[in-house]
């Protein structure tokens, strides 16, 4: 029983980082109807920025995070302007391939610049581990979870109360009406890319402090599809709930079946959900008209 609780806790806590990555996907999807296959690479790029600032230039961790966020924002703006802007309104397959191409470019550039070896990244926050009776949760997992919770909380407040947040939500729910009400949709879409880049960078830094940083980091982001499909592509709440659910399930399956199952569980989940409930738990069902 204590084993079950330990696996569950580990899973729920690691679900926090999934929620962050999923948030990055959902932000972009809601505002621009694009699934960003490059989010893993954005994560990785952001983590490398942090690594460069902190380890190579010796900036203090907090300032390094800020520097990384600023640089990833600039890069997100460039990506949006050069790649996504000219392709807006194109068929799904074109936009999808454009983000895959973007992923390939970022991956190649990161590997050319920083090499493909794994490097250690010092953690920006102090770590503490949790002990519940005889159940132990490692410190890095707890810190990551706490950081994810704080960040998601901040984002919810931002979306709920700030004027910019309301603008973003309006753009997401109905771009045309939002435009007639005087909202600059292009600005909102650009902003959603920047925000997704920021969320991704923080997720990347958190993951890389726990397990080291190498270009392989980006591959993990693809398994977050299970989360966003389960939660529904356009629901932030769904993404959070689904992230915890998927994290829990993964940990249970890995714990009882074996580590190899980690590669396949998210995708089996995706297929299952798509067959049973294609628009996820909280997603909006799309109605098509001619």
């Amino acid at each position, binding site marked *: 029983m204590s084993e079950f609780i330990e696996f569950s806790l580990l899973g729920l806590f690691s679900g926090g980082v999934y929620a962050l990555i999923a948030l990055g996907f959902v932000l972009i999807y809601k505002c621009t109807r694009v699934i960003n296959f490059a989010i893993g690479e954005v994560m990785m790029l952001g983590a490398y920025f942090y690594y460069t600032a902190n380890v190579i230039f010796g900036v203090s961790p907090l300032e390094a995070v800020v520097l990384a966020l600023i640089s990833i924002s600039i890069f997100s703006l460039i990506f949006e302007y050069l790649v996504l802007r000219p*392709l807006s309104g*194109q068929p799904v397959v074109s936009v*999808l391939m*454009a983000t895959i191409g973007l992923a*390939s470019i970022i991956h190649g*550039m990161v590997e*050319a610049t920083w090499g493909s070896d794994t490097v250690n990244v010092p953690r920006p926050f102090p770590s503490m581990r949790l002990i519940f009776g005889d159940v132990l949760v490692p410190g890095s997992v707890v810190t990551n979870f706490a950081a994810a919770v704080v960040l998601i909380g901040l984002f919810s407040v931002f979306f709920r109360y700030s004027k910019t947040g309301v603008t973003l939500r309006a753009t997401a729910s109905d771009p045309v009406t939002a435009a007639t009400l005087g909202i600059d949709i292009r600005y909102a879409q650009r902003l959603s890319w920047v925000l997704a880049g920021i969320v991704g960078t923080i997720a990347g830094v958190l993951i890389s402090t726990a397990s080291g940083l190498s270009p392989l980091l980006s591959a993990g982001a693809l398994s977050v599809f299970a989360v966003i499909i389960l939660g529904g592509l356009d629901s932030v709440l769904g993404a959070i709930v689904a992230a915890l659910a998927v994290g829990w399930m993964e940990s249970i399956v890995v714990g009882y079946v074996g580590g190899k199952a980690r590669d396949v569980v998210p995708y089996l989940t*995706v297929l299952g959900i*798509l067959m049973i409930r294609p628009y996820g738990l909280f997603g909006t069902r799309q109605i098509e008209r001619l």
Partner: protein
Amino acid sequence: MRIGVFHETYASEESLLDSQTQRAVFAVFLAAFLALPLYGSDYVLAMVCIVGIHLIAVIGLNIITGNTGLISLSQAAFMGVGCYSVAWAARWGIPFYFALPLAGALTALVGVLVGLPSLRVKGLYLAIATLAAQFILSFCFREWESVTGGVGGIRIPRAYLFGIELSGDRRLFYLIFSCVFLLGLLACNLSRTYVGRAFVAVRDRDISAEILGVNLLRAKLLAFAMGSFYAGVAGGLLGYFYGAVTPTYFDFGLSVFYLAAIIVGGLGSVLGSVLGAAFMTLVPEVLRVATDLARPWFPGLAGLLLPMGQVVFGVLIIGFLIFEPHGLAEIWARVRRAFVLWPAKT
């Protein structure tokens, strides 16, 4: 010169090569191409064979994605299924001319299974469903050791025709390209049949297509079946070509590579598939040769080859999407038009 082509019958208007000149040029090209093993170097021949194998898979993907508009990210996994089926068929002593269609049929079955979600979801959701299928299948390739040989891979016995061993690039060249021509011809003719037009109708607006009387269920699954049949045959040929394969060959990257090839070549066109497959296969080779040449001046360049290849790959995809959405096929058509209309301006 190709001047004054006047069609007098519908048959002549519909024919694939519609003028005397075109037929003559194509015949010369075909003769020169089929004689390639006589004068081509080993390197050229090996590259051409690989292009041929990729070409079959790309044509198949173009039927699924280009013609029918269903995004598939699992073409590489389908190829893997074909490859392992051929490996087993060859072990049981089934000759290649039965083994290849058999592998194709088996892959088509898998393709239909993977295509099932396309009945409920489309667009991005379908892309993610096929992505999931790709990862699940490659997991099977790695872990189902009794069938696939696991990470170590599997050996494929040689193919024999009338007691002659089909080994070496020169003999396999004819095997590969007879498959290419057969399947290519089939794909060319597809767009002139009811099925092909139904595919295009589904791509352009599936609800309208259904109202017009196209059976969506049948059209979508048939597209997946056909596309994965092509992939299965390509995978089988790949098995015969290399003689041994490991599951890493059929990874997600290869699926993306195929999708990139149809975008660079031109969606929904067989000519586009040909150009795209050749172009995308040759670009890394050109890069490799270029770095080899530049080595005396930039010694550090060799280590950058792989990342640079990725960057070029991405730039090509995005560049074509933005500046030439109809791909190389459109460039080809423009060049041809310029020749036909010369000296008038296009």
